[in-house]
């Protein structure tokens, strides 16, 4: 039986960049015990000899001609921006203070 502790969920939430309340961490860890049990059934039939399928179409290296087409204007691209400055996206600080 697989299970996830509250700390496991907290670590996954950090990796997925989602802040979570204590209550949510605890309740999700309970739910995951049930969900993981249910989905772990895939291991019953997934033998060594079975090739995995990542995609329904057997496509490989789909190319198109390298032609320049009209693209979004700067104003259009910025139209949904939460914040902008001098025709650019303004984002919070990315690098540390030091």
């Amino acid at each position, binding site marked *: 039986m697989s299970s996830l502790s509250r700390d496991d969920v907290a670590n996954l939430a950090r990796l997925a960049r989602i802040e979570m309340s204590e209550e949510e961490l605890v309740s999700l860890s309970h739910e995951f015990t049930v969900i993981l049990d249910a989905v772990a059934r895939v291991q019953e039939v997934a033998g060594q000899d*079975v090739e995995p*399928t990542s995609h329904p179409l057997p496509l490989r290296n789909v190319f198109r001609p390298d032609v320049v087409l009209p693209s979004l204007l700067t104003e259009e691209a910025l139209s949904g921006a939460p914040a902008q400055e001098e025709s650019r996206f303004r984002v919070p*600080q990315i690098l540390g203070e030091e």
Partner: protein
Amino acid sequence: MARALRAGEITSVALTQAHLDRIASVDADVHAFLFVDIQGALAQAAATDAKRAAGERLSPLAGVPLALKDVMTQKGVPTTAGSKILEGWRPPYDSTVVANLRANDIVIMGKTNMDEFAMGSSTENSAFGPTHNPWDLSRIPGGSGGGSSAALAAFEAPLAIGTDTGGSIRQPAAVTGTVGVKPTYGAVSRFGLIAFSSSLDQAGPCARNVLDAALLHEAIAGYDARDSTSINAPVPQVVTAAKSGDVKGLKIGVVKELNGDGYQSGVRTRFEESLELLAKAGAEIIEVSAPNFEYALAAYYLIAPSECSSNLARFDAMRYGLRVGDSEGASAESVMKLTREAGFGREVKRRIILGTYALSSGYYDAYYGSAQKVRTLITQDFDKAFQKCDVMVSPTCPTTAFTIGEKSDDPIAMYLNDIATIPVNMAGIGGMSLPAGLAPEDGLPVGFQIMAPAMADERMYLVGAALEAALLTKWGAPLLSKIPELSGR
């Protein structure tokens, strides 16, 4: 409607206005729409009327109004995918589906409600409140495309667009007594479809009868260089098939594993009755087995969350959508975390975390890797069965529409809704649901599912048209004529 438009008996403006009036009257009860584009719709309708008056050659559905699932971008029109994280966003571009609708002069009336990012089977996961089933307002209209199916059943729109990742077109169609088709993967471009699970997502037509669905299918399908998974081949002759409905000599395979235990008795009654009608129409009914279908649900709930955890990483509060906690000195990481906490609903978070886990080092082979192998086994089951039959059939859902709130605290019970629809997505083939009647015990619609091999979508329309015609003869009137009148306001 299309015929009346062509004959000049009605204008597109009048037809569109009548539907907008109906929306104004009943949508407070149904809540199928998140946004109604009154001005845009009437302008598009007027332009179509002008083209017709000028004698231009128009497409068969020109001037007919449509409801668009809110997961498709439409330039300048609010597009949320049912999520707070995109509330107020107006996309700067049209999806290919929208471009194709415009090219066919199909009038887009507004955006329909859905489970957040198409994750759900009831539309209860919408950040903007649930949609109600017009057959019984206390029940769910299916999901994720419950807004589109409810709009059809409530006569708010004659046509709608849905998207189907694990059944989000077919299950809503089944529980509302409407027709919904998931075409072969790659048949309809995904450009401008807000991605949930890229290897499973597929847009398709929703309508009140098989022929309308076929006409809409033909309007939106086709190769698109902007979607690298788009199929570069002619669109199957779905309209011809829907007009023919000739199933003489066709072999129909009943999936042994998608029937029996766990299926409501009224669902089974209607399913058996439909099989008899198809046999009477000249089809040969055989039984086929798909032993690995029982693992499809488990594999789906690993593959879809895995892909969504990656796809939804784009909602990072930087370029569009919600941004929370952007105070002086706040780091980008803290803004991302706070935004995603506030912007995503519970089911979305649950799936992102599950996907993050399934893809993480040390667990990848056991979960995501094994699920991909199950996908191969399911595809092989279909291949083997299609050597014996031309199409496969099953009930679309194990039960009729359940009550709003009934399953929202039990994710596993909720996921079981999709048990019969998921295999189709896993294999990338086509699936249709059409109404098979009402379950005697609760008087609610039952769906009949038809599955066809990849690139043979026309076979679903052939069988669908045959069954629809036989049922219409039996009933004397379409199923939706039995729907209770909405009081309106």
